[in-house]
């Protein structure tokens, strides 16, 4: 859907995007994450044809967005981090204006406005002035404006910032719904726990370079998450570490007197044998569960350990890295 090739964007004395390449799959929700100053907002603005890159190109469905920005805007939606609404207009007027600005014919506008309002669950506020809406509802109205023309690709920059927990949950549901309807979404956020709820892929940026681009499933599997097993025991066992260390196929990561975190191999037969041996040792095993690592853990690990991708390589979400 969106293909970014060798993107470079400079500010005087500072390179914001350094040969960034990646491809976003159609129908996916890609979480764009990275520390402050990593280049997330710049990347989104360049992809939205709001800024022109120093080098490289952005292809949306095969067309370079900078060749004809207006044509690209008809196929994409973008909600910047700092957005505003026409507070003096009603919700209906805001949506109607936006629909007209997107070139939707007058005869179709009423139906499209009603549909967008229903989609974002603001139909009951249609005659209310935008300035009187709560922050969560304003966010919904802004998203409704961004998707009125039914874009194939939607970008949201920090859409959850400033929202209360209920509004955030609502936003997650909206994004899942849009993705379910076939929209491809790129969303940047610092709230990783929520990104984990609805994202299918993750794109990590660090110092203007891609650190990681993969599906969440793959990241979870690759990071050893499924090989880390948490063990629980019915009673305190003073020499628990020694007894666990005696099992050669098992690596002890942390160990207390009644619980431990160990790493096993992926081989199911060996796992079954270890489980059987732990049961046979009479340790009172009460828990043998794979340790789930949060997206935040993975993110922090990647940011700490992994060097940015070598410039000039196009990263695909499933393939890791593929030469251009």
């Amino acid at each position, binding site marked *: 859907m969106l293909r970014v090739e060798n993107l470079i964007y400079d500010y*005087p*004395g500072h390179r914001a995007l350094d040969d960034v390449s990646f491809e976003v799959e159609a129908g996916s929700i890609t979480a764009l994450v990275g520390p402050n100053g990593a280049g997330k907002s710049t990347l989104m603005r360049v992809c939205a044809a*709001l800024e*022109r890159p120093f080098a490289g190109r952005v292809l949306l469905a095969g067309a370079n967005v900078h060749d004809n920005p207006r044509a690209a*805007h008809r196929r994409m939606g973008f909600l*910047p981090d700092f957005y505003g609404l026409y507070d*003096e207009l009603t919700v209906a007027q805001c949506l109607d204006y936006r629909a007209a*600005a997107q070139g939707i014919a007058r005869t179709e506008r009423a139906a499209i406005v009603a549909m967008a309002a229903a989609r974002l669950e603001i139909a009951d506020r249609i005659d209310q002035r935008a300035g009187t809406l709560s922050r969560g509802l304003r966010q919904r109205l802004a998203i409704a404006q961004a998707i009125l023309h039914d874009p194939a690709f939607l970008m949201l920059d920090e859409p959850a910032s400033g929202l209360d927990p209920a509004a955030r949950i609502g936003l997650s549901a909206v994004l899942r719904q849009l993705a379910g309807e076939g929209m491809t979404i790129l969303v940047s956020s610092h709230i990783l726990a929520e990104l984990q709820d609805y994202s299918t892929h993750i794109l990590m940026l660090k110092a*203007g370079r891609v650190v990681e681009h993969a599906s969440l499933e793959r990241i979870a599997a690759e990071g050893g998450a499924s090989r880390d097993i948490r063990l629980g025991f019915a009673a305190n066992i003073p020499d628990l570490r020694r007894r666990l260390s005696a099992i050669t196929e098992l690596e002890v990561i942390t160990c207390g007197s009644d619980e431990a975190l160990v790493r096993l191999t992926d081989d199911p037969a060996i796992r079954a044998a270890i489980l059987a041996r732990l049961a046979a040792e009479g340790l009172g095993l009460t828990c043998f569960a794979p340790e789930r690592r949060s997206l935040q853990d993975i993110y922090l690990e990647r940011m700490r350990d992994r060097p940015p991708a070598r410039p000039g390589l196009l990263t695909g979400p499933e393939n890791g890295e593929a030469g251009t």
Partner: protein
Amino acid sequence: MMPELNPELRRNLWLQCGWQRLAGALVVGVTIAYALYAFGGFARVLFGANLAILVIFGMWGPRRAADSLAEEVGTGTWEMQRMSGLSAWSMVWGKLVGGTAFVWYCGVLAILAYVLAGQQLDFPPGRAGNFWLGVYLALIGAALAHTTAFAIVLLLMRKTVFYRRLTITLAQTIGFFVYVVVSGVESVRLLEQVDVAPRIGRIGESEATWPLIGAILGSFLFLWAIIAAYRLMRNELQYRAWPWVWLLFLAFAIFAAERVALWPGSSDLVGIVSVPLILMLIVYAAALADPRDPIRYRSGLIALAQCDLRRGLAETPWWLSGYVVFLAYCAVMVTTILTMPQDGLPRGLLYAMLRFDIFLSFENLAHSGVLLALFVLRDLLVLLCLSFGPWRHRADMTWLVYLALVYWPLAVILTFGGYLDYITLVLPVAGDNAWLNFAPIMLQVAVAAFAVRHFWRQATGHGASGLPQVGAETA
């Protein structure tokens, strides 16, 4: 079926022209007009209407035109607008007309009062044409002032990356200045006394009065302002464009400067000299208006090196192409002066204008043309130096202060201190000593060029070619 109204215009009309506001303005206007009539008759109404036209069109209008963009930036709706499907032209006229719709409504009410009062005063039929010329000047002045303010805000947006707020005082001030120059402020008094309404004076001894020139020039400038706003809006929407419109404008400026300079009593030489001065001012204005982003400059240089003419020319700064035209014209001027007969030199005029004996030599005048080109080059290099260096965020103001200091106090001190032989050090006025004429300015140009190169490398993290390094030194 009714044609579709421009969405931007419609939105602005929703916001600006509610029936309460329209009715309120009408009631207030009629009340004030009646009060003026009651206290001073139609002459007072004429005076009040004239003042209202000045305030509404000259002061309020430019502010509203500038605000139609600045408010969008301030409230965060501009990025959403940039993501819409509206064409650049639709955005320009929708915002310009829509943003000032209420101003025009109030202004037209004031003009109606002005016309009605004028008719009641029985202006002589022979003067009616001038009266209507005055009305036209008010309208074209307003249109030009509003469009100028609008275009200046677009220029300011171009100079600011990731803008969050804009100040519109500059746009409003220039808009007001433009309105006053084109339309004048003294219409009532002059209507009563002489043959034209908003006249601000005659030029020389010709029959051509300023109102007519102002009307013609104002109409052309309005067209150019609209074109400029459109091109700047396209630029804002990230479209690239060839610089041919800019070159056409320079051609227009040359033509207009030559025509306006040719009043009776002047010679061809005056036209020839006035054009480089106008071009110089345009180059300086273009340099101030340019973002002077070293990254874009380098991008353009690399594109040209790669023979990507479209991208290279599109990213060529206006001041640079303006300077090239200016240089070409200077060359023409110098050649013309050197090939003119000796008696073609307008001794009296130059005496009056400059009061320098050293001007009375063809060779000196030709040298002055070369010096002018070098002085402008030095000033541009100083501006680039400021723009690429650590003073980047204050470059415009620092440069204006530099110009004021370099050209004004030193020239005054040398002139009144009796050191006219050394005036060539601070002004592009050549003396008899060729070495003294050219050596100092050449040295200044060389030093400025060296400084530009130094700061350029700091700002881009590299030289004139190739890609910059990551983590380049931040200036």
